């Protein structure tokens, strides 16, 4: 890893007193590789998380491209159905647990202490451990690809009994790797909660915290609540596979539907874990480039909390077709529809922030605006899916694939991209190359829509998800989707190029890199020195 930032250099410590003295009172630090293995610094660990996430984004992306290449035309051309199923499964697992979640944890590591004026995370050694569990977990997961019988092939939702009685032998390794990733998430969440509750700058009340901090606080509670449920359900699978129990095997008196209840009791809050921090990022970026304070700060906090609470009451909307009783269908339909209300409040607040602002379109803003539009489209299809009678037609089709990719790719992933462009000047001391970033943005927007928009049509017209081959009437939609995926996938190389260029040099950024930015992170120099806020800053509440 030839990364060399951020190195503490004396001349950076001129603007704030608290960043002074650099490393002088610390012990000799390990150099080279061991510096990264042993680091307890939130910025270095944040960087590790982000680089890990980027790597997994490309690994998961290659799996997606294998899937899209096979689906380019009807017929089986490139891969066998077994391998196709392994690719869809691994794509989902890697993207959810390996790319999006670690990216948000990385951003939290870097930015939460800077945004609340803390010197580091509250539990730095735990922080190091949480990170290093991830490479182990995902090496293990990826190694299942070369095991006899192949990698997990039962979809990222791993419904029993396909994932137990009928699963490949590698499933036990998959369970172990998911346990490790889960422990990493729980420890990371504990650390974030401890940091936010204990290390805020004097004078910063909870209702003064930036929304990224708020959304992450709520996300961390969600993680602590549901990761143990995931751990429980995969342990039950482990028992069914290896120790002769029958939790999910009907032949032994077990209940395959129980698996789905448990999985989605984890899984639905999980999808908000993947999107709430994105709301926080967008709520930071839009006010900055509209040069106007976020509209309805308090309602944003309440809306986030409402979404988090509701997320525990909607899980069975993933199960409308399993044969739930009518009252259960109605209950879960109504609660799911309710989620549209706080989500709508958020969108309205963002748009009202734009209204009568003074708007510019730097790369982070482009991604944040695309987020608002495309995430809202994903929200609309989500609302349609909530309507239980119609869901019998939508369920398990490409309409669902279109829906969750709209909220996860131009949703979560675009927000992560926006965050990277927004905070790169703080991390590296340089602005990202604007032209290249624009090229990345436009190729991504076009690629994403070409890929996922036609999936609404193929799904409505009757194409089930997770099939390696399809009837001829779906051919045109699939060809467009595959071309779009190729465009979107390759254009992410531009992103890597921008990041590398930005680390190496570029236009110098001042401490306050964006003129409309208000939060505490913009009070420390750019690049942020290795140690910041060793003396707590004085927090000034913005005047009303």
């Amino acid at each position, binding site marked *: 890893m030839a990364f060399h930032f951020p190195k503490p250099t004396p001349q950076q410590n001129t603007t704030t007193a608290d960043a002074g003295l650099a490393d002088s009172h610390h012990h000799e630090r390990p150099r080279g590789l061991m510096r990264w293995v042993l680091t307890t610094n939130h910025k270095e660990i944040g960087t590790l998380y982000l680089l890990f996430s980027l790597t997994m984004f490309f690994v998961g992306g290659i799996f997606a491209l294998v899937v899209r290449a096979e689906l380019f035309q009807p017929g089986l051309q490139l891969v066998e159905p077994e391998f196709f199923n392994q690719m869809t499964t691994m794509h989902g697992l890697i993207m959810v647990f390996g790319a999006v979640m670690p990216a948000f944890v990385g951003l939290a590591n870097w930015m939460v202490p800077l945004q609340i004026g803390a010197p580091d995370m509250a539990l730095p050694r735990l922080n190091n451990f949480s990170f290093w569990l991830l490479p182990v977990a995902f090496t293990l997961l990826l190694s299942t690809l070369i095991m006899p*019988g192949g990698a997990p092939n039962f979809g990222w939702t791993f419904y029993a009994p396909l994932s137990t009685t009928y699963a490949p032998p590698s499933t036990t390794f998959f369970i172990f790797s998911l346990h490790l990733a889960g422990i990493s998430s729980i420890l990371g969440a504990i650390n974030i909660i401890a940091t936010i509750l204990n290390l805020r700058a004097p004078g910063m009340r909870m209702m003064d915290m930036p929304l990224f901090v708020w959304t992450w606080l709520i996300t961390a509670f969600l993680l602590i609540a549901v990761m143990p449920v995931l751990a429980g359900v995969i342990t039950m699978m482990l028992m069914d596979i290896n120790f002769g129990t029958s939790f999910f095997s009907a032949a032994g008196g077990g209940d395959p539907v129980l698996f789905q209840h448990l999985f989605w009791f984890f899984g639905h809050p999980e999808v908000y874990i993947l999107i709430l921090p994105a709301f926080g990022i967008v709520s930071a970026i839009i006010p900055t480039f509209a040069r106007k304070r976020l509209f309805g700060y308090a309602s944003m906090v309440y809306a986030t909390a409402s979404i988090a609470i509701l997320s525990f009451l909607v899980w069975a909307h993933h199960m409308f077709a399993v044969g739930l009783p*009518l009252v259960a269908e109605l209950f879960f339909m*109504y609660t799911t529809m309710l989620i549209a209300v706080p989500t709508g409040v958020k969108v309205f607040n963002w748009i009202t922030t734009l209204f009568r602002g003074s708007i510019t379109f730097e790369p982070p803003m482009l991604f944040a605006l695309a987020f608002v539009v495309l995430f809202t489209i994903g929200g609309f299809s989500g609302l349609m899916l909530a309507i239980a009678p119609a869901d019998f037609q939508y369920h398990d089709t490409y309409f669902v694939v279109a829906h969750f990719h709209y909220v996860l790719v131009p949703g979560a992933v675009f927000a992560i991209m926006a965050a990277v462009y927004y905070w790169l000047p703080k991390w590296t001391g340089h602005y990202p190359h604007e032209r290249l970033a624009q090229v990345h943005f436009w190729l991504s927007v076009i690629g994403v829509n070409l890929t996922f928009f036609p999936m609404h049509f193929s799904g409505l017209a009757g194409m*089930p998800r997770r099939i390696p081959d399809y009837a001829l009437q779906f051919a045109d939609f699939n060809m467009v989707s595959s071309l779009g995926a190729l465009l979107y996938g390759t254009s992410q190389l531009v992103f890597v190029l921008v990041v590398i260029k930005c680390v190496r040099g570029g236009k110098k950024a001042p401490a306050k890199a964006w003129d409309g930015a208000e939060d505490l992170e913009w009070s420390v120099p750019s690049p942020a020195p290795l140690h910041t806020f060793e003396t707590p800053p004085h927090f000034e509440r913005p005047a009303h």
Partner: protein
Amino acid sequence: MRTLLVRVVAGLMLALISPLILANGWNMPIGVTALSSEIHSLHMTIFWICVAIGVVVFGVMFYSLFRYRRSKGAKAANFHEHTGVEVLWTAIPLLILVAMAVPATATLKNMYDTSDADIDVMVTGQQWRWRYEYLGEDVAYTSNMSTPREQISGESEKNENYLLEVDEPLVLPVDTKVRLLLTSDDVIHSWWVPELAVKQDAIPGFVNENWVRINEPGIYRGQCAELCGMDHGFMPVVVEAMEKDDYDVWLAERKAAAEQEAMGVDREWELAELMERGEQVYGSICASCHQVDGSGNPPAFPALAGNVQLLDDAQWHINTVLNGVSGSAMPAFRSTLNPVEIAAVVTYERNAWGNDAGDTVQPSEIVEMLEE
């Protein structure tokens, strides 16, 4: 740059709406049951509500982006909260949601009313075929995909109903309330025909209920909708709806054929006869895992050609077919195949692809084993 942004988004919005107005092949089918058209209109209602909200929300957004550009000298205003509008834009969506929930609730209640059905059909999912049993009629058969492998691999031209065609469709009369009872022998499957607006999971250990009353004769095609393993994509559902009189004739024929088959149990079968019948059964039931040439797909699906255990031990062989192998993908066929079919397929496996057991297994032997 900025106008380009506006144009691209406007273009996307148009792309969203126009094909759906054109419909047909781009949209949910209206279908051939009262419920399917009710669901379709529910779908369109929600869709247009979403479009309307989208037009307003994105309209305000793009107006703001356009009007309040700093490059055009916009100065930022200073407002940042207003309890009144927050209450308003919480309340209005709530009212819209209530308006959507009312018709949805009515339709859902209707979908759940499986009472007073005239015909009961048991639908059983198996990796990777459907089995249909007309309850009380002694008629049962499996329905396999009939698209040849050569079309899938691209060695021959794909026909019109590629992947959506079966050897024996589910035959139902029109204008008759049919109750479907769904279950599975192995993993979870989902029985789906878009034009009937029926999608219901088939779950091992559970019996789910759904119902359908088809208005028009015709052939309606769908697929398994729940990932069920390797050949999930090759598990079509085909329903042939016919006039009631035609259905009665068809049912009578099936019953007669079933009786004929039952009588075959008592007589002695020739090797050639069993081989011919066995090849049929093997092709529709066994070949998807063990391959047409018996080479299997180890380690999950062992080869049958040259399988020493199979050739040495006929009892073991029959037992495996009857009772399956627990903890593996090999299901028990004792209740899904009749004695003639089991005898035939075992005989075929023992004497095809160079296997040279030379013996026959008689249906009567199977009956004896089943009685034990």
